[in-house]
């Protein structure tokens, strides 16, 4: 079935089966990816998928279902499943958005305005992908004699379309496309291997620059050769912008209203309190041109808007969907996130730590006589997103008296909330490319280092 037709059938069938309200999402995507190894194509993959997800509300009780079979009978079964499941759940106390809260085609932030789609992406074909892989591989092997293997090398493109409809007449559509390239290089010195990786995504494949990315990956690999542990103890730590977003994202669940309301966030009851130094602003930014998290309407059809959750260092609020805003009795904020297989949650559209008050990395490195500049994180599972406890293996450089010595086999510990409240400074730039997290490098006054 065509998406609009399938969405209409699902909503109508849910109503007929006893749903008082319902919303439904259609997602489809196509992608093509190519992996190469030692000058040859190892894999070429093409994906073509579509699915429909439905939320039926019966007396405010939600039931969810989804289907990847998209014939009328399967869509009808999906609708009946959702209504049947609603009898098991507890009421949410929400109502789907009324027309004035919604946006759609013709609104000020329709997807074309956000630049999520450029036709050029469809021209990124297997030949172009292989050419970029071969050029990058050759460049990486020439760049340094210590390069011994390139186990990860690939390019891809993907395009997607999402439509959201509800029983009150909302219908919104979003289309996006992007091209990516990535390379992982292993170099060796004295029998020790170090991996360096770099990858990038752009809307327009002509911006990928595979050779530049390859050189970056080589540099990231060889710069860590000869790394050694350094003695345990407290040390100022500069998290490079390569890892700062990944690091912060471990703990972002604390900003979900749902987690706050249910006692699994340490930010419970702290609105209005200081979390970070003055000038530190952490925001959700749904309208950044071209970026991965940009969107005109959220997963429930509400208009999105940029908002600071931490403003001048003070906690101002959380990320809400209709359910959590209703529970708190506040106006909806348009942060709902949804895919067709799952239930509605909330999230940052694009996460941004603003650059106000930022300083260059070189300046930050010199803020203390000795700084550990971290460029690589090794797994986040030692970190506890609820308590905020940090325990994570890292690699990087000890910066001391103008020299940089590579460091590995060390782990950092501390607490993210203490780290933020004592943050010494942050950088003045972000990584390039299409992404959904914009965090400059972060200088923590003191984390505990173990080796």
């Amino acid at each position, binding site marked *: 079935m065509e998406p609009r037709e399938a969405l209409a059938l699902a909503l109508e069938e849910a109503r007929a089966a006893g749903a008082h309200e319902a919303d439904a999402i259609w997602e489809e995507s196509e992608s093509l990816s190519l992996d190469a190894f030692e000058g040859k*194509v190892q894999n070429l993959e093409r994906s073509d998928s579509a699915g429909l997800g439905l939320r039926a509300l019966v007396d405010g009780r939600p039931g969810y279902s989804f289907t990847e079979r998209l014939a009328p009978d399967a869509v009808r079964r999906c609708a009946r499943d959702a209504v049947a499941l609603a009898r098991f759940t507890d009421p949410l106390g929400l109502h789907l958005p009324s027309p004035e809260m919604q946006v759609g085609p013709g609104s000020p932030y329709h997807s074309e305005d956000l630049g999520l789609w450029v036709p050029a992406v469809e021209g990124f074909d297997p030949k172009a992908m292989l050419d970029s892989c071969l050029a990058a591989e050759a460049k990486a092997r020439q760049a340094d004699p210590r390069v011994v293997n390139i186990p990860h090398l690939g390019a891809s493109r993907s395009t997607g379309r999402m439509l959201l409809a509800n029983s009150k007449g909302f219908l919104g559509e979003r289309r996006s496309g992007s091209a990516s390239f990535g390379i992982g290089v*292993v170099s060796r010195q004295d029998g020790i291997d170090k991996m360096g990786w770099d990858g990038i995504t752009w809307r327009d494949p002509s911006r990928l620059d595979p050779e530049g990315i390859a050189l970056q990956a080589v540099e990231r690999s060889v710069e860590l050769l000869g790394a050694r542990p350094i003695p345990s103890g407290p040390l100022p730590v500069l998290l490079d912008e390569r890892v700062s977003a990944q690091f912060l994202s471990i703990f972002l669940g604390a900003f979900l209203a749902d987690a706050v309301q249910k006692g699994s966030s340490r930010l419970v009851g702290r609105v209005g309190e200081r979390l970070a130094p003055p000038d530190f602003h952490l925001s959700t930014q749904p309208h950044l041109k071209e970026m991965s998290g940009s969107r005109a309407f959220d997963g429930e059809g509400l208009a999105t808007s940029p908002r600071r959750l931490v403003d001048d260092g003070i906690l101002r609020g959380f990320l809400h969907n209709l359910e959590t805003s209703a529970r708190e009795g506040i106006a909806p904020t348009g942060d709902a996130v949804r895919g067709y297989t799952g239930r509605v949650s909330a999230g940052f559209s694009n996460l941004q730590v603003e650059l106000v008050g930022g300083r260059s990395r070189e300046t930050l490195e010199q803020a203390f006589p000795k700084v550990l500049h971290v460029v690589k994180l090794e797994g986040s599972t030692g970190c506890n997103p609820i308590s905020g406890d940090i325990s994570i293996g890292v690699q990087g450089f000890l910066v001391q008296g103008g020299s940089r010595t590579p460091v590995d086999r060390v782990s950092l510990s501390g607490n993210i909330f203490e780290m933020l409240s004592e943050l010494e400074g942050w950088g003045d730039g972000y990584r390039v490319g299409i992404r959904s997290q914009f965090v400059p490098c972060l200088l923590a006054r003191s984390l505990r280092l173990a080796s």
Partner: protein
Amino acid sequence: MDRERAGRIFQAARTRGADLAELFVEETRFSSLLLRDRKIESATAGTEFGIGLRMVFGGQVLYAHTSRESEDSLLRVVEEMAAARPRDGSGLDLGDPIDGRKAVAPHPARLDPDDPGVDGRLEALRRADESARSVSDRVAQVSSTLLHRRSRILILNSEGLDVEDDRCWTRFTVAVVAEHQGQRQTGNEAPGARRGLEFLRGLDVEAQSRRAAERAVRMLDAAPAPAGEMPVLIGNGFGGVIFHEACGHPLETEALRRKATPFAGRIGESVAQPCLTAIDDGTLPDAWGSLDFDDEGTPTERTVLIEGGILKGFLADRIGAAECGLPRTGSARRESYRYAPVSRMRNTFVAPGTSSVQDMLDSMGTGLWAVRMGGGSVNPATGEFNFAVEEGYLVKEGRVGEAVRGATLTGKGHEIMPRIRMVGDDFELAPGTCGAASGQIPVCVGQPSLLVDPILVGGRS
């Protein structure tokens, strides 16, 4: 999928030069129930459906998947993919056809979980919630889920392979948050099996929930973990995640194909102490990671990886086996029709030894007892790993002391192996989800308690 239609698709693939063509047809039903904050927060059901088409040209794999099952659209995919193929494939002898007749289905689901209304599932979730809360008034939050998945798959290939399988998994999870004076700690349990709803009937849901709650509450009073190199006694069951990440992944032919493993060329060599034997076994009855057939139709088997410290073998799918010159082990796996199969683990474990936990505590002197491991990660190309300790205790001269939190274990897989000094007699398996090139798949990790001396512990004090 009717066989004649499949035959015409294979014919088209062969005409375009494919050495092998394969269709993987899957229909999977999911259902899940989530209880949180004393409420049934969501109930979900769903159907996944799709067809994966794989064409192999020498060592080159072309893979496409679609939810459109018409012959025309599948033939179009064959044409488009073959036309797009860069012509650089090397000649590779894929070896004998797969004989898919040998396996006898040992994992039938007895109770189909498709209808969530028929049973005591809601009650089980409520009992889990109550028993966790009864442990302490410091229990602040409980969430609990029941997940079912039933896949019906069909694998056909151009050599005449014709295998059908019906796979059912059931899992119960409970996550408890304990809170005291602003401190928050968590405890989790997540048992699962390759079974239908009958798994839930035999499960002591209350005991699982209490165990998670008690751990969360105990960790509230834990002191920061020490830091530095020291002997560590790694607890049984989920402690096997370290072997899985640090040695299991590098023993997949998928790593060997890319020369991204420190074990390349080392079969027959000593890689660990003689006390260590490690196995990957897809045949264990009802185990979460067990199979009947792998995802290219090869009957599953038990594969010895390390025996008495000597490296014996790798985990191989058909292409990995052909490329690396190794025997196939029935290890081709994929999350769903969306992925081409590659070599993956099933139930991977360190076999039991003879030491008691007390013997190992006595022998370790001063160090850390990592009773329960959290998750972790590894870079297979370099072997570097990092794991969290969810529940840990200090050990001083063989005596178990105070609880500690925030510890991580860091090192390199192939360097840690020779440092496993004693192997316990308290073997246990634990289910988990493994993510890699062919998606998220159910696997078991497992081991008895192991004494590793020394290992780097990251902590706060």
